[in-house]
């Protein structure tokens, strides 16, 4: 399970949430930091570069030091960063791992401690993961046995488990999402709101950012996969957005009928209390993304379980900041049931790595 917790969590909104412990009065006249360790994009044992991201959401400059704590026994440099972000400035601070051990659970406890020169300290503990797709071509058949060499990313929402697994080859992007849910609601034409269980996911080039205005252009490839009940019905993939689309399009409740993406292979199968969504998409349909070993991309997932947990958002589990919720990050569609506030951004770090052995 991916969990994160702020040591001095105070549910009074973002400003207080990230405020320094000593002398904090909210952001007015103060420097306030948001902190996050990004997920590893290749297994830690391979000695990757990791990143700490920091944002000053206050209205004065911050000057201080952020200490990074990784699991015991790991060797990494640097272990602390001196920084002075201006108001609203974001920093992405690299660190190199020289020695680390991969875990079967794919969960790594980390901590950031920010100490301001003017006094005050905040910290954040997270459990981060290796968010990476090993190289492999799975058979898309609803049988998850050939996903054994993937790197599972597990998160739990209201006691229900989701497991995201990904693979890549030079030609295909493949994803498998196991969704623990009470029952499966399939897609039917003219579906009514709140009846369709589905998995929505987005890919983009590494480092891409989502705009904040309806006229801004999308820079993602966004898909939806859903079960289609019926003896001869094939499960479906829909292409919801591609680079160049106006972000305002995401707010239109579009019918899915005309958005079918025939180049994808999709199988949705129910197994006990779990629904398995399996899908592969050719990279030729996503020409902005260069499939290459060691390449960082953005990948994120929303699980729609309208009659159960509601939306399960990998962005939340991955520790994105509240300020990274963005209604333009995900497309609406006929049959969807959104929650309020909107989901988190879809530009979450993910990596293309070599096969496990």
């Amino acid at each position, binding site marked *: 399970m991916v969990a994160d917790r702020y040591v001095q969590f105070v549910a009074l909104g973002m400003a207080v949430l990230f405020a320094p412990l000593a002398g904090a009065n909210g952001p007015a006249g103060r420097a306030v930091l948001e902190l996050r360790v990004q997920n590893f994009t*290749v297994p830690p*044992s*391979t*000695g*990757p*570069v990791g990143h700490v991201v920091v944002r000053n959401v206050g209205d004065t400059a911050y000057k201080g030091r952020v200490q990074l704590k990784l699991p015991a026994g790991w060797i990494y440099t640097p272990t602390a960063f001196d920084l002075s972000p201006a108001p609203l400035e974001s920093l992405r601070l*690299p660190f*190199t791992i*020289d020695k680390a*051990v*991969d875990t079967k659970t794919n969960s790594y406890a980390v901590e950031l401690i920010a100490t301001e020169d003017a006094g005050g300290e905040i910290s954040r503990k997270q459990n981060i993961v290796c968010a990476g797709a*090993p*190289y*492999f*071509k799975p058979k898309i058949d609803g049988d998850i046995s050939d996903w054994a*060499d993937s790197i599972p990313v597990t998160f739990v929402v209201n006691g229900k488990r989701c497991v995201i697994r990904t693979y890549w*080859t*030079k*030609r295909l992007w493949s994803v498998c999402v196991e969704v623990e849910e009470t029952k499966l609601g399939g897609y039917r034409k003219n579906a009514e709101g709140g009846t369709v269980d589905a998995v929505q996911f987005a890919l983009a080039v590494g480092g891409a950012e989502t705009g904040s205005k309806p006229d801004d252009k999308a820079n993602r490839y966004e898909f939806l996969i859903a079960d289609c009940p019926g003896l001869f019905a094939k499960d479906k993939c829909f292409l919801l957005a591609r680079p160049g689309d106006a972000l305002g399009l995401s707010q239109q409740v579009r019918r899915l009928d005309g958005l079918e993406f025939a180049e994808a292979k999709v199988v949705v199968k129910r197994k006990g209390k779990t629904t398995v969504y399996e899908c592969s998409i050719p990279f030729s349909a996503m020409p902005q993304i260069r499939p*290459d*070993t*060691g*390449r*960082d991309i953005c990948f994120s997932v929303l699980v729609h379980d309208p009659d159960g947990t509601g939306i399960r958002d990998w962005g939340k589990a991955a520790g994105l900041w509240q300020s990274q919720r963005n209604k333009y990050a995900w497309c609406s569609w006929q049959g969807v049931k959104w929650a309020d506030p909107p989901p988190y951004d879809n530009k979450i770090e993910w990596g*293309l790595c*070599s*096969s496990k*052995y």
Partner: protein
Amino acid sequence: MCCVEKVGVGLAVLIFACSLSGCGALFVDKYVAGDAIAGGDIVMQVAAGQNVDPFAAGRAAAQALKDKMGQTAPHAVIIAECFEDRADKNRALKGVCSVFPRRIVFGFATYGSFSQAGCLDVDSVGLLGIGGEGISVAAALRENLGIAGLTMEADENELQSRLQTAGADLAGGTGRRKDDRLLVLMADAHSPKNQFLVEGAQRVVGRKFPITGGSANKNAGQSYVYYQGRMYTDSAIALMLSGDFEVSQSGRQAKDNAKVISSAAAGAAEAMAGATAKPFGVLAYNCAGRKGKLDNLSDELAAIQIGIGKTIPLFGCYCAGEIGPADIAEKNTGVLSSGVGWHVMFTVLRK
């Protein structure tokens, strides 16, 4: 003049190697071409081909290499191919072997290749031809490494034992000559396992002997090495280059776009520095992970060309581990070459 001698390593060596590895299916093969003459010519040329038809790519690259080699018949042709899956790799290999004799074709599956002409990704073949009276090539194959599926976390001791043995087998299998200059290892053993292979080879050639090379593409279904035109997995090959020439080496590590570019420039310049003889070829075993960090593949090549110029034949490929001078804080200062990852390893050959 190219005399070819194919020798199954003597029974004694075979039994010795088997006893070390505990492997009943061990096979070591040896190939020797050329008898380097002091002052003789050395011809090293590079060619490449890219085509969705693997046979066409292999054949086009081989024909281009043959044209560049002119009247010189190569002792060895090294292939670095980047095709998906066994069938296409085999067709690319057949394309090369439709131009050159199968017995002189060696190499491995990679993540792409580069030369002075540019960088190639998927559906490509890069070739290096080595010939002339001034250089000889000995090659050895070590099958059945016995490491497929073993991990450093769970099987480090087993990996160390098997790969050190294999490294010694390979270095010994090439035979030793007084004019040995450079050992090139290509193996289905990726970083960090490649260090054990190097340690084994150093038991035979010595800790200061120049060694370079790379690990084959480690992706599932892609991890082949090629020996005399045939495909092998869980195997490694060695090429010993001998003759009247010199080598100089440099290695650099980097893990992000800017540093990959700057480190390539620094490494290339260092390998070229202090040259008293004229360079006739550059080998660059580069990391696929470095490649993945590049926003534009050509940026790193351009940086390399600042160091080596644009005229010396350059044979580069992207690997799953690299062998050469390590650029790491905890490197063993008593050795020249190490097996590592995230590096570009340059070897400049001069005469």
